[in-house]
């Protein structure tokens, strides 16, 4: 049996994914700083990649399957056949500002919002969809600093518990989208391996 190739993201999701898979008989570990591993059943070859690179690997078919948050796929601009949504790793994309920030702009109308974010595509599409012009400042990390230091009055970022925002004197103004974690496939890879993929999805769906 040739194993299916699956890209998993490094970072916050990894342990939850590992646990979810192990509970269904798909046990794997990455030893000695290796970035590839096979699961114990031989059904999967897993590659560990940086979150933002994951859709690129799947798009080019280097990994046939991918698993990550909606936000990552959206930012990549790629679209993939959806296979399964997981019940862990949920988070929200939110608009935040300093506590007691006084809005001088209107969320609809001609005034534009200046927003610092890592999620530039989402932010642009979301606010343009609402008819709100936005000026976006791209940042790759510690976005919470932007309102504190005066780079931009608003940020758009993922919010789980809100504790980082709170610690920096910020608050959520609006939840823009619920973010879920999904398994998806390269379209051509799915067509060539739909039976094995269907059986993997059945295994992962079991509670």
């Amino acid at each position, binding site marked *: 049996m040739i194993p299916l190739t699956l890209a998993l993201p490094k970072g916050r999701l990894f342990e939850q994914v590992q646990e979810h898979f192990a509970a269904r008989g798909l046990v794997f570990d990455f030893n000695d700083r290796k970035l590839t591993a096979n699961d114990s059943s031989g059904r999967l070859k897993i590659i560990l990649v940086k979150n933002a690179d994951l859709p690129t690997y799947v798009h*080019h*078919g280097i990994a046939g399957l991918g698993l990550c948050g909606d936000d990552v796929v959206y930012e990549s601009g790629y*679209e993939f*056949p959806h296979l399964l949504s997981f019940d862990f790793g949920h988070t929200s994309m939110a608009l935040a500002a300093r506590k007691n920030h006084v809005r001088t702009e209107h969320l609809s109308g001609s005034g534009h919002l200046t927003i610092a974010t890592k999620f530039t595509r989402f932010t642009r599409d979301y606010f343009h969809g609402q008819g709100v012009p936005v000026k976006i400042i791209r940042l790759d990390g510690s976005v919470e600093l932007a309102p504190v230091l005066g780079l931009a009055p608003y940020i758009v970022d993922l919010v789980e518990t809100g504790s980082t925002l709170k610690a920096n004197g910020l608050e959520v103004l609006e939840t823009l989208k619920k973010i879920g974690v999904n398994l998806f496939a390269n*379209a*051509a890879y799915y067509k060539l391996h*739909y039976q094995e993929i269907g059986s993997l999805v059945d295994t992962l769906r079991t509670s």
Partner: protein
Amino acid sequence: MNPASQLYKLPQGTERLMLEEAFRRQELVRRVQDLFTRWGYQPVQTPVFDFYDLYSPSLGRNADSVYRLLDREGDLLILRSDITLFLARSMGVALREGHAPLRVCYADTILRHQELDDIAANEFFQVGAEFLGASGPDGDLEMLLLLEAVVAALGLKARVHLGSRAVFDAAFPGLEERARAKALEAVLLRRWDELPGHGDFRRLFGFIGNPDEADRLLASLAQLDPGVRSQAQMTVQLVRRLAALGFQDRFCVDFSEVGRQNYYTGLVFQVYLEGVGDAVAAGGRYDRLLARFGLDSPSVGFSLHLGKVETFAQLGELNSPATALPADGKTLEQRWKAAQKSRMAGRNVTL
């Protein structure tokens, strides 16, 4: 931009092939063209650019990736981004109602924008065939058999997935354009919770399998209306006819194939190859496309992105000009005489 950085930068959407790579491309094209000739398909050449407005209603999802430019009279032009469209326009004008069925083929470059990180798309050169005036299942079958012959001639271990835009159209009649595009996307991306209609549609459009499995599925879908069912059965019947000709492993029924181009009206198909992250060839029936350009004629065709299959094609040993040896002789005249003899014997020789 300074001249040095321009020298080394490649514009997106362009391709350059040299020496052995270019020879291999030439050989691939020659083999496919020979095959088209043996099947009675006549070559056509389409212009590199044309008036944009003629094509804009037919571009669909590709509208963002076409190159546009202004000519000296101020008309907006489009560079050739899809040969089927350019061919339909040429044929729509050139042919007259009631023309005899016409089999045509092409091999040419296309120009589309490609994202910086999407260089593997390899969508620079299309070879393909179109059967104009072909109505009904026999026209579909001829095109699929020709496609199979091309795939076999290139030694590709590929599989063709057959679906139907007519099944989708029968399932979702009267949807306004935006809702229709969303429903198409739901099928293509298997986002079943976004698909309108009843639960049987999810099972129908999610199906991939052989004709017997497809028959069992259709028998189990009680909610399907007769129009959808009969279109689906036509697709199954086509795959059954291919299987009866010995191609049961090459073709399968796949109702999630509904076609990305909005000019399709019936059969649609895509060809998949292990190791390639995208379909390598695609085609289908477009009975109303030529009418947009003045000729109401049913048609079916396909095109193959040659760049996607180049490294997988089994061409055997090639008699490349790079293998040429120098001819014997002291003077150029002597070498020319020796070389002529060697060339007659099929060897490549330089002077």
